[in-house]
């Protein structure tokens, strides 16, 4: 990386890193509603507004449902838009998440992952975002405050790409990332502005038969969010599938471009393979757990254990080929899920990973560990235990229990 730009180091927690990135991204409309552990984002951003540091319409709505709605219509009107939420707030947005994706509105949202009620719990797990995985949004799961900052900026460029034009959520673990203070390298304001440029609009044919930018504009009337019944609905949904597929290469492209500017990269933008080349045992996880796991992997490597880690950074769209390539030569894999899929066979990440590996002739043995629910801490020794279990599986050539609970009193 030769032309890395000079950057400032600022002490920010994950939430503040989000607010800082949004401040630099020349966002037109922020509509949001407070909820722990995301609230700091909205508060910091309100301060930027109050001090005239941003040219943004800040709409402090009466609910998350309205926050998502206002972002959606603002985006359809041509604005760059942002919101943030967690847990119950994300659940309340559920209906509108599908509409936002279906309307092809490139809203960017930060999600400070938090458990869902009941019982009420304000601490981190990924149940909230996982419950929205089929909503048509891009989902990026990041590891620390630095990556939060970098990824929020990237998310605007990915979402607004005319070949994608889909909303994107940047997910990070509540409290662990949202509230931990880190040294964050921040780009100069004008570098972010230049990186993002102005919002792009694809050209579409209006009902008047003219070609016009896709947005609500009195110059070129368009009917958006229409009713479409069995004769059209299916094709429109199929186009969404294609757009999400396009996002795979756009996410990589934007990630690489950003890496050149900042000197920071996260695997290939889709997955991060950590010491996987010759690994025999490996774990798969999303988010901040990767940080802990990397330390455990390093220790194990020093002890001569061929251990590795796959962090899935882009969960939607799922980088199927990348996951296959990364895991095909590993002998035993443990998938860590910070979420339960009630009544299912293991957690959602387990479902996906197991499912994409099925078509390989040679595939690893796979087991699942549900962990960290409701913010329960997962210390390194527990992760180490997972690798010990994998070693045991290889030795005995037998899986005792495919779905396990890590750090649970039973």
């Amino acid at each position, binding site marked *: 990386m030769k032309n890395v730009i000079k950057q400032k180091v600022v002490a920010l927690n994950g939430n503040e890193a989000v607010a800082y990135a949004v401040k630099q991204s020349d966002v*037109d*409309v922020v*509509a949001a509603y407070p909820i722990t552990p995301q609230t700091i984002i909205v508060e910091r951003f309100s301060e930027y507004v109050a001090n005239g540091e941003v*040219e*943004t*319409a800040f*709409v*402090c*709505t*009466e*609910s998350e*449902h*309205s*926050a998502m*709605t*206002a*972002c*959606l*219509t*603002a*985006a*359809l*009107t*041509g*604005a760059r*838009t942002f919101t943030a939420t967690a847990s119950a707030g994300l659940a309340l947005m559920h*209906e*509108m998440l599908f*509409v936002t994706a279906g*309307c092809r509105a490139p809203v960017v949202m930060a999600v400070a992952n938090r458990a869902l009620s009941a019982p009420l719990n304000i601490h981190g797990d990924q149940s909230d975002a996982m419950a929205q995985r089929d909503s048509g949004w891009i989902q990026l799961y990041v590891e620390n405050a630095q990556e939060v900052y970098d990824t929020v900026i990237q998310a605007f460029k990915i979402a607004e790409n005319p070949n994608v034009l889909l909303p994107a959520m940047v997910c990070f673990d509540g409290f662990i990332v949202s509230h931990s203070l880190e040294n964050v390298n921040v780009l100069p304001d004008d570098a972010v502005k230049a990186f993002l440029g102005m919002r792009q609009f694809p050209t579409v044919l209006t*009902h008047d038969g003219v070609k016009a930018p896709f947005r*609500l*504009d*009195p*110059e*070129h*009337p*368009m*009917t*958006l*969010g*229409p*009713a*479409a*019944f069995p004769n*059209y609905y299916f094709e*429109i949904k199929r186009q969404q599938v294609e757009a999400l597929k396009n996002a795979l290469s756009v996410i990589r492209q934007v990630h690489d471009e950003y890496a050149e500017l900042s000197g920071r990269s996260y695997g290939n933008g889709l997955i991060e393979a950590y010491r996987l080349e010759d690994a025999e045992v490996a774990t798969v996880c999303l988010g901040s757990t990767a940080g802990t796991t990397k330390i455990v992997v390093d220790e194990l490597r020093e002890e001569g254990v061929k251990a590795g880690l796959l962090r899935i950074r882009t969960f939607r769209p799922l980088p199927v080929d990348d996951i296959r390539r990364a895991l095909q030569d590993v002998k035993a894999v443990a998938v860590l899920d910070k979420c339960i899929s009630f009544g299912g066979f293991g957690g959602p990440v387990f479902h996906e990973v197991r499912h994409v590996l099925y078509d390989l002739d040679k595939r690893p043995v796979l087991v699942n560990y549900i962990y960290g629910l409701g913010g329960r801490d997962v210390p390194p020794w527990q992760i180490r235990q997972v690798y010990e279990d994998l070693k045991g599986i290889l030795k005995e050539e037998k899986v005792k229990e495919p779905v396990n609970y890590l750090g649970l009193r039973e």
Partner: protein
Amino acid sequence: MQSEWKFTSKDIAEKPDLFMSGHRACAGCGATTVLRLLMKATRGPTIVTTATGCMQIVSSMYPYTSWAVPWVHTAFENVAANAAGIEAAIKIMKKKGRVKHSHVDVIAIAGDGGTYDIGLQALSGAMERGHDFLFVLYDNEAYMNTGIQRSGGTPLGAATTTSPAGTVVPGKLETKKPITEIMAAHEIPYVATASPYYWRDLIIKTRRGLEVEGPAFLHVFAPCPRGWRTDTAKSMELAKLAVETCVFPLWECINGEYQLSAPSKAIALSPEKKKPVREYLQLQGRFRHLFTPKFEKLIDEIQKITDQRWQRLLKKCGVSASKT
């Protein structure tokens, strides 16, 4: 703040329809007449957003549209938030030089379900925040799109599919929520009621709602032959009778000052012109069961409540509550 805007019937006839023909509404639909008149009152670049409901479904069946203006639908309960997002975006993009027009009007349209019930939270929030837009409630007094279910706007005694008239229950047991007063209590600059029969009044009020800075709320009566079990030719007659019986009086609340509109004022001044509710009820199948010995007493109850509400309104409008 009264609109200086003057127009002739010719002006209205010559202005191209922005809510166009070819939609899929039932014959005699009052709400589509409301929309057509509404769009005659626009004063320049306008963006419209509609809540899920009859008017959304009949006007936007892909790949067709009845809208000659930019239009968007997103869901049922959030049309006020739709408007808030559009308004906020236009304002800031204008400031940044990315919107050419000096002003863009925003109109949100919802049925009674999307206003009195599921849409009330988003509506109240948007009004409190003071977004500059006009919210139009077309009130056909039930959830028509889903097959005539009761709403908070369904009147006492009306039979709907979720408040059917049975052998012991005479249709809806609760009265119509005073939604317009609730909106006036938000202390927004403009609140009014209108009826498509008095089409000039409706057009003028729409224009006032657009001209005012800040939120405006327009409650428009919208007869529905399908849901009210009425003759498709009688929709405008019903829109007139509702006013003449004071079931749906016409008034404005401008910056907190209530005033009666001409058709209702005429009744206030000459109380003998006020017609009994019976004349209005008897034309409608949804009230048919009230004209049986078993439930007849409810007509008196409806008359009593109508009179009480009318008296209360007169007081608010500063008209001495004479024997009306």
